[in-house]
C-alpha cells in the first residue's frame, strides 16, 4: 500500500513511516538523426526530504493560528539593540545573541504596505500557487526588513496598503500559509481555506 512519507520526532530522533522514494526504470536516450544510436539514459529521482525549521518553527506553527511572529534583539550591549526582524531571524546578525520572539500580528495588520512587487507568469516544478503569481514584498512600520510574500486578491501597486490572511484550513505549514489582500477586502472574498485570523 502506498502512503505519503510521514515523520515525527520521538526522544530527539526522527521516526519515519511510509514511502519516501519511488523507483522507476531508467530509459535510454537515443539520437533520432543518427540511426537511433544510444546517447544516454534517464535517471528518475523521486525523493522526500526531511527538513527541520529549528528555531523558526514557532513562526510556521503560528501562521495557521492567524499569528505573525518576528524577532527583536534585546541585548543591552548590542549597538543595534531593539532592531526588529521579519523575516524571523533566530539570532541578531550583529551581536549573535538569541533574539526575542515577538508577536507582530497587529503591526502587520495596521501598517503593511507593498514595497515592491512582481507579477510572474511562470513557475518552477513543484509550485502550488495559482498563476500568475503576484509576488509582493511587504514593509512594516518599525521593522528593519521587508517580507516576501504573495497577493491573493487584486493587482499589486507600490505603496498600497495590504492586510494578512492565513491558511487556517488544511495548512501546509510553509510560507504559503501567509498571503495578503488589499485593505477593505471582505472575508467572504478570501480564497478557500484562508481567513483574516
Amino acid at each position: 500500500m502506498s502512503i505519503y512519507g510521514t515523520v515525527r520526532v520521538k526522544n530527539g530522533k526522527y521516526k519515519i513511516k511510509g514511502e519516501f522514494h519511488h523507483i522507476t526504470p531508467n530509459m535510454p536516450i537515443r539520437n533520432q538523426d543518427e540511426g537511433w544510436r544510444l546517447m544516454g539514459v534517464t535517471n528518475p529521482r523521486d525523493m522526500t526530504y526531511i527538513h527541520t525549521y529549528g528555531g523558526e518553527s514557532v513562526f510556521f506553527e503560528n501562521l495557521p493560528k492567524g499569528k505573525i511572529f518576528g524577532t527583536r534583539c534585546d541585548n543591552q550591549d548590542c549597538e543595534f539593540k531593539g532592531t526588529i526582524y521579519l523575516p524571523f531571524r533566530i539570532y541578531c546578525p550583529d551581536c549573535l545573541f538569541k533574539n526575542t520572539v515577538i508577536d507582530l500580528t497587529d503591526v502587520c495588520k495596521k501598517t503593511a504596505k507593498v514595497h515592491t512587487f512582481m507579477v510572474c507568469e511562470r513557475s518552477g516544478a513543484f509550485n502550488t500557487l495559482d498563476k500568475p503569481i503576484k509576488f509582493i514584498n511587504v514593509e512594516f512600520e518599525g521593522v528593519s526588513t521587508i517580507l516576501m510574500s504573495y497577493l491573493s486578491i487584486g493587482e499589486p501597486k507600490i505603496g498600497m496598503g495590504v492586510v494578512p490572511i492565513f491558511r487556517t484550513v488544511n495548512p501546509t505549514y510553509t510560507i504559503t500559509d501567509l498571503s495578503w489582500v488589499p485593505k477593505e477586502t471582505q472575508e467572504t472574498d478570501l480564497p478557500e481555506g484562508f481567513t483574516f485570523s
Partner: protein
Amino acid sequence: MIKFSKRQLKTPRLMRPVYLVTAGQSKFDRAMPEKKTEELAIDALTMASRLIDKTPAELKSYIHTAYYGHFADHFGDQLLGEAVIHDRLGLDPLGTIGIKTGGATGGSTLWEAVKTVASGYSDCALAMGWERMDEVPTDEGNHLISCAADKDWETPLGHIYTGYYAVMAQKYWQVFGKEEDSFRRTLAEISVKHHGYARFNPFAHAPMKITVDDVLKSPVVAFPLRALDCCLMSVGAACAIICDEDTAIELTKNTKNKPLRIWVTAGSHTLRPACRRDMEIPLLPHETAEQYADLEERFPGGERYPGFTGFLAARMAAYYGYHMTGINDPMKDLDVIELHDAFTISDVQTYEDIGLRPYGEGRDYVESGDCYHINPHTGQPGKLPSNLSGGLIGCMHAVGATGIMQVFEIATHLWKRWGEIHGNPGLWKEFDREKPDDWTDLQVKGANRSMAISHAGVGSHVTATILMDPDHLLKKDA
C-alpha cells in the same frame, strides 16, 4: 552588517604579483547531448594550452593546484563532480577543491586560485568552471535554481527565481526608471547589443540580429522583463591558468600571450533581499557623499540603500578592487569590461554599483553610447565597451564557467588577440556555426586594463576581477 570597522575595510593585498597566463573555453549551447562535461573541460584546457603554444601535457606539468567552479551538483545528480573532472584531466594526485557561489562561482574560483598563487602555496594554479543545465526539463531546472533562494521563506513561493529577482527590477524600474517608455527601450537596447555582439563570437549560444521592438514584443516573463531581457541557460566550460611572475614568463616565452596582472576581490550581501537593512552608501574613490544627498528628492522611493535597487555586494567588490589596484574612475581607468547581465535591468543596476554612473543614472551609460564598441551616436570607439562577448544574454550562462568566460574575453583584448581567436574560421567550423558575412573584429584598440563582474543570485556574492598589462599599472605596489 550595516556598519563596517576599519579592519573590514582594509585594502586587500597580494603577497606577490599574480598573473593570468592563458585561458580557454568550450563551445556554449543550450544542450550538448554529444559531450560529457569532462569533454568540455578538456576542450577548454586544450584551448588554453594552444594559446601559449603548449601541448596539454606540457601545460599540465606546471599546474600545482586546481580550483573547480561548479554551482549545481543537483543539476547533474553528481556530487563531487570536481573529483570526476580532476581525474579526467589527469591531475591526480594534486590538491584540489570545489567552489560554489551561485552565479559568481566562476569569479570566486579565480579568487581562490589567485590567492593560492599570491600566498606562495602554488606557482601555477588551474581555475576551471563548468555547468550543464541540460540534464533536467526547464521547469525542474527553474525549481533547482530556486533552491538558491531561501528554502523556507522564498522557494515555496512559486519555485521560480525570476520572481525573487524581478521584484528588485520592478522597484528599480519604478524609482530610477520612472516607468518611462524611454527607459524600457534603453533596457531593450542592451539585449539588442548583447545578442548582436554574440553574432561575432563563435563560442556564443544565442547570436541574434534583433531590434528594440523585437525585445519589446517578446513574451513577458515577469513585467517589465521579457524573454529577450533574460540571460541564457547554457552548457559549457572555461578555464584560466594563474601563475607567479617567474612561471608566467617561462610559460609565455616566445608566445603571443603577454602575462597579465590579475586581482580578484569579493563582496557579499543577504541571500534574501528581504533582509537588507537600510545603510549609508559606501563610496567609491571618485564619489562624494554630497552627490547622493538629494537622491530621494530626485528619485522618490529611492531613500533606502541598497534597498531593492542596488547590489551592495557589487559595490563592495568594486570598493576593494579599486583601492587595491589604484583605479579612481573606472570610466577613465578601464578600457573594456564584462558585466553579469543576468537581466537587462540588473546590467543597469551594476553600472551604478561599480561606479560607471552615479546611483540613479545608470541608463546614461547606454544612452550616451559609452558602452558600445563603436558609439552609435559619434561613430567613434565607445568610451568603455561592455560585454563584447555577448554576455550572459547573448553568449552564455553556464553558471560555474561564466565568470571565467568573462575573464577569457577581456584577456583576449589585452593580449590583442580578440580578432585572431574569434575570427578563426576553423573554430566556427569546429562548432558547426556559420561565421556571418558581416563579421566584425571587436578588438578594443589599445586595451590595457579591464574588469569582469561575476554575480550570484540577487546579489549574495559578487567578485570583481581586474586585469592589467603589467606595463600599464595604476599603482606600483598593487
